[in-house]
């Protein structure tokens, strides 16, 4: 039939760009670094295959410590972003008046449109020993000498939370927005206290949004580069930095690729674990907004 031909043709036309995109830009490149990561260098321009890059990773505590540190900090940042962002999302979705809601949301989004670099730069200006906060504290006499706020993990976490919190707020707002106020009212009406209603109704309802936000935030944090480097101090190690070092400073594509694969696998594992624990699925959470 002519009509089924049209259907088929339109399907092919729509599927082709998708297939090209996913295959050429996502799957094959990932396989590519997988392939490189299995290459062992035996001499200039000579390679054999094996898992020695992975063995090297595992046998060097610095590397996996960095990976663990990155993961741990990312989880911390994710949790912080959730704690900081939830009240904000709740305010925007449930408390603010209709009109101010849009404005608030927009205000929250503005920093999103400025590059990481600018934001980190801003923090440096504020937090450095001779920066605004330190000067201000000295001026009001709270401290006698200059105080350094930069170059420590707390600053890194704060800076990372800053860069990612909006990715937490957006999905949260969109799920909370879909929540009928009458659910909350019903929660009170049936005798629930403020805390009960929050724990048993609001949070479970927002769960898909929470999970989506956490996944995105976790991934962004684990993959971030500038903020930990610029704000981090002398102990600050970040796994993406390691990858960059391997690729650029050490000219070692093999171990760089290995690190890349490991980062991907490890973060995917964390995300999978999170999805399992909260009983959600990737498609139903992230794709919702």
């Amino acid at each position, binding site marked *: 039939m002519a009509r089924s031909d049209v259907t088929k043709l339109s399907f092919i036309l729509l599927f082709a760009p998708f297939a090209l995109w996913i295959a050429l830009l996502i799957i094959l490149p990932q396989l590519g670094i997988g392939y490189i990561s299995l290459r062992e260098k035996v001499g200039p*321009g000579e390679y054999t295959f094996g898992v020695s890059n992975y063995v090297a990773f595992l046998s060097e505590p610095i590397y996996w410590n960095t990976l663990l540190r990155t993961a741990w900090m990312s989880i911390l940042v994710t949790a912080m972003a959730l704690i900081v962002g939830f009240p904000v999302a709740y305010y925007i979705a449930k408390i603010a008046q209709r009109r101010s809601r849009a404005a608030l949301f927009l205000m929250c989004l503005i920093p999103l449109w400025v590059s990481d670099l600018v934001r980190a730069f801003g923090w440096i200006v504020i937090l450095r020993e001779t920066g605004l906060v330190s000067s201000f504290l000295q001026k009001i006499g709270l401290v006698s000498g200059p105080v350094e706020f*930069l170059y420590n993990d707390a600053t890194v976490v704060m800076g990372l939370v800053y860069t990612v919190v909006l990715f937490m707020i957006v999905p949260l707002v969109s799920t909370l927005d879909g929540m009928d106020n009458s659910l909350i009212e019903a929660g009170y009406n049936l005798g629930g206290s403020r805390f009960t209603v929050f724990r048993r109704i609001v949070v479970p309802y927002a769960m898909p949004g929470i999970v989506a936000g956490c996944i995105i935030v976790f991934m962004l944090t684990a993959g971030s580069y500038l903020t930990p480097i610029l704000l981090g101090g*002398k*102990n600050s190690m970040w796994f993406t930095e390691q990858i960059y070092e391997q690729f*650029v400073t*050490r*000219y070692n594509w093999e171990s760089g690729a290995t690190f890349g694969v490991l980062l991907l696998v490890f973060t995917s594992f964390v995300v999978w674990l999170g999805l399992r624990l909260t009983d959600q699925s990737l498609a139903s959470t992230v794709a919702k907004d």
Partner: protein
Amino acid sequence: ETLRLLTWGGYAPDNVIKLFEEANPDITVEVTLSNNEEMVAKLRATGGAGYDLAQPSHDRIFAAQQEYNIYKPLDLSKVDTAALAPNLLEGVKANATIDGALYAVPHQWGTSGIVADISKAPDVKGWGDLCNPEYKGRTSMRLRRTILLGTAFSLGKDPFALYGDKAAYQTMLDEVTEKLIACKDNVKTYWNGGDDLSTLLLSGEVVVSEAWDSTAFKLYGQNKNLVYVPPETGALAWIDTFVIPRKGEADDAAYKWINFVMKPEIVKLMSDSTGAIAAVSNGIDLLPDDKKAAVKAAFDEKDLANLKFFANIPAGLEDMEGKALERIKAAASN
């Protein structure tokens, strides 16, 4: 025609480019700022394409070329060799000749050493002072191979001599690593670029730091207390060179640029911008006055004679050094 330069910050100042383009109206200059590691990494990724002229240091040519084949041999006849300081040219030749082909000519040289605020740290002598508890929390360094080498010298070793013996080099590195980890408490932060360094020193947050002499000279212009101190074991010296990437598309323009920046009047402008000393016969004299003063304040003849030029890094060492640096970075401190 476009000349795509892959070079260090300051090595292609706008005024020089302007003059060059006036002299060669058919050429426009495009600049990408980079550093040693990135230059090699980029050229490696592009297979030597994308740029027409690059400026790695003299020790970054041999191994990179052997491994990745990213440069093309230079035609020395097209370079105005007469202008170049013969000793530097020979040095570079020794470092950058492979199978009889020469891959680089010198452009600028400079040193890495210590910068100190003499009003607060008057007694700084050498690399070891970075770890001097007297300046606890007031020192800084760049966590790269320079500090490894410097510390090695301060411990009385000669790392360049150990280049041939990996095991010995590793032993030395271990010692250096230990020293630097112990020193970590002393350090306020590790700086990443000239900007970091300047801000740290000018704001007074740091009083002693490892530094590039060029940055130090600039700082001297701002604050006469900030003085470059060549370590007593000898400042580490580097020569930034010109190389032509294997797939460079504007060789003629590249040679024109090389010869152009060696002209005395351009050297002056260039040195003003880079803070480094041009690899021409009377390089120091062609420095702008304030820098000249800074150099004179920093170096005496003895220091100049005591320069330690970087040697070609044999393959594999860089990995070892990298690991050492990572261990330092990863080590705990407060």
